[in-house]
């Protein structure tokens, strides 16, 4: 098969001498430097596995002579960003809460940092859009109705110390009596006060029952929810005369609330977030449309 190579007529291509059934293999030689480039890539490839993490061992890969590590790169990048933000963080901690808005750089930083803090820590209960969970007791942070107040200071305190938790003695605290469970009111009375509460927010109700309910309300509820049902933010008592219901505004939901009471809890974030993070997320929540 491998006969002597044949040099053909001028202008014709040399063959390798291989031929099968009269079909000849022509020899159009590859440039030699091309082959050297190929060898160079092999050398480079071996060098690469020596210089960088490559060969898998039992617990980890070989570390490589250059000590490259993507994990260390990430740590360094985070440290770099932290260092770069140190100045504006200090500024945020020192700033008056209500002065953040006026400082464009600070406001931009607080908005973005607050957004990140919110998405990491708050969305589980309040939702990624901060709209809460209507009727389930997770407040909507976008509206103008606040249990404990919607000013920067109020929101800041709520986030810092939390609500009705057992881990922070400074936590906001109030407790609604379990009127049904503890037999403070009987079922008829609960029915009557429910009709009265429905009327406070302009919903259809049984006027006769509501008249009796008004007396019960004045004796049992007005201390916290106020005589006109406007609520009391110092005690976290919700307004009953508006269109927003934390646990639902239907007859059934209100009856259930009066019967067994509600007890919403929020962690104290001073245990998990730094001061600048709390301030940033305060600003973020305040700028979602409901801030006062």
């Amino acid at each position, binding site marked *: 098969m491998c006969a002597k190579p044949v040099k053909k007529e001028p202008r014709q291509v040399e063959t390798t001498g291989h031929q099968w059934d009269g079909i000849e293999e022509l020899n159009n*030689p*590859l*440039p030699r*430097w091309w082959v050297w480039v190929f060898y160079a890539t092999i050398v480079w490839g071996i060098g690469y596995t020596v210089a960088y993490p490559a060969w898998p061992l039992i617990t980890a890969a070989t570390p490589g002579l250059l000590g490259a590590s993507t994990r260390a790169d990430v740590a360094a990048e985070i440290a770099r960003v932290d260092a770069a933000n140190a100045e504006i963080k200090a500024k945020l901690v020192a700033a008056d809460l209500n002065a953040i808005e006026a400082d464009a750089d600070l406001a931009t930083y607080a908005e973005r940092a607050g957004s990140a803090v919110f998405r990491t820590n708050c969305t589980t209960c309040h939702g990624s859009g901060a709209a809460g969970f209507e009727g389930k007791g997770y407040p909507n942070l976008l*509206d103008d109705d606040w249990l404990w107040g919607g000013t920067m200071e109020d929101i800041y305190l709520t986030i810092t110390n939390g609500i009705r938790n057992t881990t922070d003695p400074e936590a906001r605290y109030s407790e609604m009596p379990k009127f049904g469970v503890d037999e403070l009111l009987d079922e008829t009375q609960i029915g009557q006060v429910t009709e009265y509460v429905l009327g406070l927010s302009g919903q259809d109700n049984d006027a006769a029952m509501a008249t009796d309910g008004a007396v019960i309300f004045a004796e049992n509820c007005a201390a916290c929810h106020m005589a006109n049902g406007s609520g009391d933010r110092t005690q976290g008592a919700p307004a009953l005369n508006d*269109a927003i219901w934390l646990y639902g505004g239907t007859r059934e939901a209100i009856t259930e609330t009066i019967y067994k009471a509600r007890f919403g809890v929020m962690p104290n974030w001073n245990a998990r977030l730094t001061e600048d993070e709390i301030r940033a997320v305060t600003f973020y929540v305040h700028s979602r449309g409901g801030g006062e």
Partner: protein
Amino acid sequence: MTQQDDDQPSLYAAREPIFPRRVKGTFRTLKWWLLGLMLGIYYITPWLRWDRGPSLPDQAVLLDLANRRFFFFMIEIWPHEFYFVAGLLIMAGLGLFLFTSAAGRVWCGYACPQTVWTDLFILVERWIEGDRNARLRLHRQAWSAEKIRKRTIKWTVWFLIGLATGGAWVFYFTDAPTLLRDLVTLQAHPAAYITMLILTLTTFAFGGFAREQICIYACPWPRIQAAMMDEDTITVGYRDWRGEPRGKLGTEGAGDCIDCMACVNVCPMGIDIRNGQQLACITCGLCIDACNDVMDKIGKPRDLIGYLALTDEVRERAGQPPKNVWAHVFRVRTVLYTVLWAGVGVGLVVALFMRSPIDVNVTPVRNPTFVTLSDGSIRNAYDLRLRNMDGEDARFTIAVTSDAIVVLSLEGADGLTVTVPANETMSQRVYLTAAPGTRAAVEDRTDVRIWVEEQGTTNRVYHDTIFNGKED
């Protein structure tokens, strides 16, 4: 290696060194002018200044990658206008198609950086080591003091040219005078030095050593060009019906070709054009100059080698005159390329003049779709992205129109006006509120149109979007 293997021809070939001889003539002169023009544009452009006001760079052509902005004289391209760059690239592509279908590999022969820099490197080589014969001699002789001296000088000059090439490149990406000062004082960013080093080494290797190997083995363009050429494309050709059979001057029955090898000796690609059109030919025209020179000396008509189309060959063999050059150039293919090229160009110019100096993006907030306020009102939120592409601060007034009644308010602002600093993009949350029980509050969807007007100008844009009500 076995004995049998030794009989095998090598499957790899070493590069045959090429020593192009000096040549004078029309095309050589044209190439020198083009070389000067193109190198001049390349080196001078980053140093041109263009006043854009205090807050913007004053470099006429600047690819500001850090700030994601592209400046080209009076034109400023923002990232969202990248289609202008895409359009220019399409025009460049169509332009190459046009020139290739009309005049073959004219890009390769005259304008390609590989050709221009190789020409420059060969010029340096000739200046230091002499013309073809001297260089051949130097190549064959053993290493001596003279050879070392000449090679060292040549490589040093090549390296300096490479350095200037890479150096000019980085000036396109940042303020040139500042960067030059930083480069000299060793304070520039490492990326600048690394870029310069890579371009210096590639220029040195490609212009000094690889040369025609790049065109033949590395560049995809010669292979693609074959698809754009046809029998009317003007290429360099040898009139073999006039030249053959070759023979010494005065030989009985011989053609015009005296087999002096002038055309081969001047060829930067090292080919023999008399073998016909071939892949390695970059149609630079130097063989035409060389042959015409010889034809003049022996008193024969010029253009034994010349620019001609394949259809001319048929006509000339039949004793007819060749077609006019414009008759080759104007044909369906080139007209089509020209129309496409001009169409994209006109489209870009129109788009450039029609673009609004303010750019507004309205994104309705859909998480949640609406918010119920304590009085029962329904509120929708929209994120406005306001882009001020002017060199001065701009005040934008926001308004809303709709068939239903909705009230507009801005987050963090009392009025309906926001100020966007010069050359910046700002996000502004906007609220629309519908009173309880009104049409917009109870209907599923209501069309609204949000207007943005720049104060003190007639610039006004609107954006149509939807208001979501609370279904009962």
